């Protein structure tokens, strides 16, 4: 191990750190006049970082196995930073308001710190690293959730989030202690050979699953999700629902594949039940939601169920499908959240009922929202269809036909509630539709990225093929 390899393999993390430091310093020392360039600077830096991240790092380990990265992992990192960039672009509107403009710096720094944490989590090679990454990814997020601190919902959401996060990480590390106790090591590379399915290992695995289940919000570890999503500022919700979730899902998959592979029997059975519960319950809850963010919370819970379906497959195809699914999910969900945040910013409307007649006044926004919803619902030719199809195929290929069937039945329920929103925007008549507004350029740009992604990510097969190439390397 030399300095060079640190620079190569750790490049995404280092560049993130660099951005964090630059922004922190800029925020601290910039004058009032220079403050207004803060956001553009952040976007540019982030864009550069994202672009650079897509030049994937090679596979390798650092620090004696503490840090282990693969092409797939670095691809996921790139995807996540893309998502973060989109979130940033969408957050601009809300952040430039008077009541929060002075906190802009903190927002960016904290978000990037959590992204850093996620990167660490994704390419950790040791449970300590994993734990640290996990905590870095979640604790600052609690601060972000409390970003609108004088809004009661925001404060309450933050409390719920931090309490749940702490509990779940407590349980997770308790589980890790069992793993450590029975294996004698926490290095990913060494654990598998020590696993022989003793009771404590099983318990440790379950506790680990629970901790990750919290992050991905799988039933029954999902209870915080709707409240937090509803209370948090919209950009943070978007970030929580896509980046945090995507990272956790991928990290979970990595660990399950890399470390708990000998116990696949156990976790596959558990995941089976968890997936069914997750998808079904989330869908049922989603049906009756009024608040659009809360609605999307449940929607994202059920989407998480589909994501982990890819883990079930336990194959390279499943992994490809899952990464692809995460990508598509990120794009679709961010498109939806972009619309939600701009609507909320300009009109203050957050209820689904208040979206009635949106199409008549803001056709573009309604249209983007519809695309996003269709994509989430798995309607072709939008990307969501492809990602669902692939993930189902990979799960079915491993023999989980019944599971796939249940998931499919659930897509119908999900389609129902997605259509409810579409209906509200397009069909429902109202006397007071949201007034027409012009969104910020950055947000429009971010939506354009998302829409392009939604439409092209499916049809342009090179994306899927590319992901496949990198994951097959694993």
């Amino acid at each position, binding site marked *: 191990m030399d300095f060079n390899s640190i620079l190569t393999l750790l490049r995404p993390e280092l560049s993130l750190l660099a951005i964090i430091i630059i922004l922190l310093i800029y925020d601290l020392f910039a004058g009032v006049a220079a403050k207004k360039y803060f956001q553009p600077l952040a976007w540019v830096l982030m864009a550069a970082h994202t672009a650079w991240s897509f030049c994937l790092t090679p596979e390798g380990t650092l620090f004696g196995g503490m840090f282990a990265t693969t092409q797939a992992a670095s691809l996921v990192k790139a995807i996540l930073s893309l998502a973060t960039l989109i979130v940033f672009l969408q957050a601009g509107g809300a952040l430039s308001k008077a009541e929060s403009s002075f906190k802009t710096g903190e927002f960016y720094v904290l978000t990037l710190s959590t992204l850093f944490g996620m990167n660490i989590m994704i390419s950790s090679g040791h449970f300590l690293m994993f734990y640290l990454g996990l905590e870095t990814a979640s604790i600052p997020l609690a601060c972000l959730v409390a970003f609108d601190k004088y809004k009661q919902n925001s404060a309450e959401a933050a409390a719920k989030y931090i309490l749940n996060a702490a509990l779940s990480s407590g349980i997770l590390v308790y589980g890790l202690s069992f793993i450590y106790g029975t294996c004698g090591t926490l290095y990913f590379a060494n654990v598998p050979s020590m696993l022989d399915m003793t009771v404590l290992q099983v318990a440790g695995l*379950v506790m680990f699953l629970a901790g990750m289940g919290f992050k991905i919000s799988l039933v*029954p*570890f999902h*209870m*915080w999700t709707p409240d937090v999503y509803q209370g948090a500022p919209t950009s943070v919700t978007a970030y929580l629902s896509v980046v945090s979730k995507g990272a956790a899902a991928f990290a979970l998959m990595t660990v399950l594949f890399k470390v708990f592979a000998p116990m696949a029997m156990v976790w596959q059975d558990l995941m089976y039940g968890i997936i069914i519960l997750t998808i079904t319950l989330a869908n*049922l809850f989603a049906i*009756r939601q009024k608040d659009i963010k809360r609605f999307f919370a449940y929607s994202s819970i059920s989407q998480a169920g589909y994501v982990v379906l890819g883990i079930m497959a336990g194959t390279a195809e499943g992994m490809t499908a899952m990464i692809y699914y995460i990508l598509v999910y990120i794009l679709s969900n961010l498109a939806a959240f972009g619309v939600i945040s701009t609507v909320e910013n300009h009109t203050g409307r957050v209820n689904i009922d208040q979206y009635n007649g949106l199409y008549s006044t803001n056709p573009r926004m309604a249209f983007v929202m519809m695309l996003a919803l269709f994509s989430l619902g798995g309607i072709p030719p939008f990307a969501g269809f492809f990602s669902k199809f692939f993930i189902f195929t990979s799960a079915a290929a491993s023999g989980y036909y019944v599971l796939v069937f249940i998931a499919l039945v659930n897509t119908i329920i999900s389609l129902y509630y997605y259509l409810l929103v579409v209906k509200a925007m397009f069909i429902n008549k109202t006397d007071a539709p949201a007034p027409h507004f012009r969104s910020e350029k950055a947000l429009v740009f971010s939506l354009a990225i998302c829409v392009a992604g939604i439409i092209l990510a499916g049809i342009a097969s090179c994306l899927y093929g590319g992901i496949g190439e990198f994951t097959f390397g694993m």
Partner: protein
Amino acid sequence: MEYSIFVLLLPMMMFLFIGLLQGKLKGQSAGIIGTISMSLTTIIAYAVAFDYFFSPESKIDGIYQKIVEYNWVWLQLTENLHIDLGVLLDPISCMMLVVITTVSLMVHIYSLGYMHGERGFARYYAFLSLFSFSMLGLVVATNIFQMYIFWELVGVSSYLLIGFYYTKPAAIAASKKAFIVTRFADLGFLIGILVLSFYAQSFSFTDLTAPGGVALSSAAGVSFLGASAAAWGLSLIFVGGAGKSAMFPLHIWLPDAMEGPTPVSALIHAATMVVAGVYLVARMFPLYIDAAPEVLPGIAYVGAFTSLFAAVIACFQSDIKRVLAFSTISQIGFMIVALGVSGMGGHDGLGYMAGMWHLFTHAMFKALLFLGAGAVIHAVHSNEMAEMGGLRKYMPITHITFLIACLAIAGIPPFSGFFSKDEILSACWEFSPVMFALMAGIAGLTAFYMFRLYYRIFWSTPTDVSHHTPHEAPAVMYLPLIFLALVTLVAGFIPFGDFVTSDGAVYHIHINWTVATISIVVAVVAIAIATVKYMKEKSKAPQNPLNNVGAFYRAAYRRFYIDEVYMFVTHKIIFAYISRPIKWFDRQVVDGFMNFLAWGANALAARIKGFQSGQVQQYAYVFVLGVIILIVIALAL
């Protein structure tokens, strides 16, 4: 005889021409064009018939052959089965060509006067052309499926023409009824075709009626519910025929069909379409004889019963067209009986020849009757006997021609009806005396009700005179009457057996004088009774010839409540016990199940909503419990 195709093409072109241009054709032009084209068709048809009957090519060893003039594959169904369209000439089809074109031409001419000034005049002629086309197509069909095709087409033309006065509720109902009842019968026909063609692997009449019943040899030994496949097939085919030919119990549509314009009744519901069933049985006759001889007596009994039944009802009707309608049913019954009692070849085939002959003569005189009745209705503006009487003074030509027709149908020599009916009775005589007695009795009834009709129209005084003085019909209307009367006068002397027989060989008709005497006596007596009862004045109970059997009278007047039975079955049973439950089932059960799923999901969602209580400790509890349970499960697994 290649030009025979024009018999079909001409009316079809005319249908399209008049039909598409009906808005553009002013005044009488549609009628005149239609009539001219029909005349041409008639000439061609005559030429074809003449050519066929008198050219040596159509006979081999003195036996008329089936000549397939044209045959195009229209639709290939299976390897062997294909529906063809073509022209088949043989004695009966040639005879039918003559009958149809003659009557049709007469009706075309007649309608120029009768329908003058009607709204939809052009439409009327378009439909007439359609009908002529379909009917001609039916008779020249080379295969049973072609026949079925045109069979349906005549059904539709009939539907359209009955419903010609589409603003009249009765006409709408009648047209609907006619179509649906015959359609129901056609179902039998269709299944019959399926059965037969499955075994015969051919639709072609040439194959099906090949001597010796070879067509159905593969069906030997196949039986269903105790009857052979051939018997099933042929019976079902007869059901189709019975529907078109208004055999009991499928006769109910025909009386109602009188709601159409009277010339239409003459053409379709007296002369041509309704005998399609007879024609069908005649067409399939060799197969009946060879493959399922046990079906024929059944057919005869159905015919006989229908004949009797209709004759009885006819005695009690007050609407002159209804009387004629029931009379038609009754006469078709005769034809069916004739076919039913017939055998094959030579003297055995007498019934066949007689049936066909009766078909021919009946077409002429029944058309005449209807057209005469039309003239009367045209004059009186009513169908009810009560409003008629003494018309002989005002409408002499109509009167004379009507009388000739009545005499013919009553079976008085030398009118054509006598000869054909006599041959039928002879055939019955040879079948069984009981059948003979029955048919002779019906012949008497026929004479009775016809003369009742005749006297009530032309002799007795009306009870209810509220109309202007009737006058004779215009020439375009009475010329056809005269022509048909002439035909009726001479048709009996055609040596019919030289042309149409069961086996195609010449059969020399001779009159069985025992039978003839009996039938003449019966007819004369019946006419006498009618004369006594109806000639002079309206009786006090004008519509009740049998005072002392009131219930029977009422029943007969209401046509023995058969319609009511149908109404009951369709509305009370099919609608109420099938359609309504299905409607209910569809809404409540099938749809209800889907809605229940939706409702269930929604309700469940509402139920479990409280689970998300907003209490963070509850979340933690669920979390912990989830972990514990999962551990237990994982350990248990």
